[in-house]
């Protein structure tokens, strides 16, 4: 068991003919992901890494019975790509890897998302992986190992770091989800935590947050009220000065003092979540929780 993706997930790659799309399609296939189709307007009939390409997402899904999509479309067109995927009922999951999508485009995509039962992970994210089964996105498969720890994070490379610390302690992962570093994202911490809570194969969850926004505070409330699966936390950006954007568009402590690391850490600790000072401490906390 796992959440959102497994052996049976059938993937269509939007933007499969671009450099990134092509490279990561090959990587996904090598990892064992069932990539069944590509979708690129005007490229229908071509093949990439042995995968048939269709002009539309709908055409790809109908022909190849896909149920998930990964978006590698450039930022100017990625909002439209998300709308296209959201318009196909059979897709349960959309993973938007693209970085730099205009915020107003994402606000409209998110508005459309509310009308559907689809999960949208990202944008500006590394994707998600169920070790040993499938990965959708750009995560390096070789650092993950199968196990019973769920992981949800706003940052890609920080996810890799924490996974490395877990692996050092012999703790494998059920599914790892990178939800993305933008101000407006699809799947939130709360939604990801709810999925892990329902997953019998997940016995503990690591949540890696960072400065900016209030998603971590909302997650803390959710954990406090609804979760029985234990959660270990980490918050990046304790030393970030207010008003400066720390790389991610969403990682900024506003002038009025919202989005600080202190606020997030105290909310999580208030919900009984141990917050590690270092990634290795997070892994040690997980060990204690299991």
């Amino acid at each position, binding site marked *: 068991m796992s959440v959102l993706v497994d052996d049976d997930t059938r993937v269509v790659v939007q933007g499969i003919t671009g450099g990134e799309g092509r490279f990561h399609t090959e990587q996904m296939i090598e990892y064992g992901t069932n990539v069944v189709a590509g979708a690129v307007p005007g490229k229908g009939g071509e093949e990439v890494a042995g995968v048939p390409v269709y002009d539309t997402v709908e055409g790809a899904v109908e022909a190849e019975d896909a149920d998930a999509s990964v978006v590698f479309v450039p*930022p*100017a067109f990625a909002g439209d790509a998300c709308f296209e995927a959201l318009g196909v009922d059979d897709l349960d999951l959309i993973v938007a890897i693209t970085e*730099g*999508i*205009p*915020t*107003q*485009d*994402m*606000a*409209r995509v*998110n*508005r*459309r998302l509310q009308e559907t039962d689809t999960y949208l992970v990202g944008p500006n994210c*590394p994707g998600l992986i169920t070790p040993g089964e499938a990965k959708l996105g*750009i*995560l*390096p498969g070789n*650092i993950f190992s199968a196990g019973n720890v769920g992981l949800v*994070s*706003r*940052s*890609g*490379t*920080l*996810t*890799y*770091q924490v996974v*490395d610390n877990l692996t050092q302690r012999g703790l494998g992962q059920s599914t790892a989800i990178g939800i993305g*570093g933008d*101000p*407006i994202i699809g799947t939130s911490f709360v939604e990801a935590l709810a999925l892990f809570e329902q997953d019998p194969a997940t016995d503990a969850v690591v949540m*890696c947050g*960072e*400065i900016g*926004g*209030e*998603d971590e505070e909302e997650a803390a409330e959710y954990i406090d009220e609804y979760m029985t699966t234990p959660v270990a936390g*980490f918050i*990046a*950006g304790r*030393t*970030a*000065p207010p008003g*400066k*954007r*720390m*790389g*991610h*568009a*969403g*990682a900024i402590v*506003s*002038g*009025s*003092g919202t989005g600080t690391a202190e606020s997030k850490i105290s909310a999580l600790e208030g919900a009984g979540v141990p917050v590690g*000072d*270092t*990634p*290795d401490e997070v892994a040690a906390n997980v060990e204690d929780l299991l």
Partner: protein
Amino acid sequence: MRLHEYQAKEVFSEAGIPTPAAELAESVDGAVEAAESIGYPVAVKAQVHVGGRGKAGGIILADDADEAREAAEDILGMDLKGFTVERVLVEEAVDFVNELYVGVTMDRGEGKPVAMVSTRGGVNIEEVAEEDPDAIAREHVDPAFGMHPYQARKAVYDAGVDRDLARDVASILTTLYDLWDAKDGADAEINPLMVTADDEVIAADAVFNVDEDALFRQPDLAEMEEEGEFSETELERKADEYGFDYVRLSGNVGIIGNGAGLVMTTLDLVDHYGGSPANFLDVGGGAKADRIANALDMVFSDENVDAVVFNIFGGITRGDEVARGINQALGQFDEIPKPVVVRLAGTNATEGMEILNEDLVTVEQTLEDAVQRAVGYAGDAADIEEVDQ
């Protein structure tokens, strides 16, 4: 990207929002000339991207030509929080009886735009929001439909704006929202929106920040951006040139890494182990050798830096490329200017370790060890500097 006040006022005025008569001037004579043609009193306002200009002496009122000259002499060339003032906006000073606030921004928690109105204009609105949140009326907008006229009216009534002004203020709010929507605004604000004795409303200040990611489809606004104007320091200008996400801090441990979350974590660990971070530098995903060398050049150019920690967890970034970049950057020195601690993990890390010239750098296996080592080096260097002095 932020527009200057004069640029934002141009945009607002074109859309039909009333603004005071104004002219831009780059010289003292030009400023006096502008004041003469506008008529007194005028406000002489520094055009730099700094909050709280008024308090810092960047806005001066003038009642005649002598005062206008004096004001322009004081402001032009002055240093406002690190920015040199090169232009002033000379503007008709509005005789007001009241100051309002209107604004539009993205509420990230809701994932929706929000339009705001308050009768507490003319002061820092973030402070108002904190002290008295009810003093700001907020109306969330469904991005699929845009702002309905009734929503603008509702926000204005909710804020308690004078009934005689409601129609005009609602109209200005609607225009501001439409501009924000059409021009990919991040924040659009009029603070203060001045009310005159005969119930005219005029935008006395103007803020318009554009979503950087949308500049590709806003060519008119992109043209208004002036090179390097947002960089406070020489180092930040250099970071712009190299295309790095870079923030300078006050410590002495230089930090280079890949991915915002991991770089932030590295900063936090430096602090955790008793050091003090000198910067945030994210080389981004998939950096090649040249980019790595540029990153080292950046951090070496910061005179505060006493030691560097280089932490790469490769996903799409490859350890061998990173190692080549480090060798390339350090190979050109007879003596390494500052000790560099390297930790490589992830994609091609093993290959990278083999390539790295260990005469040039200290290699550590874990993030924690690498940070502690760099903090130690930086502490030693700081001690030596102290003795030298």
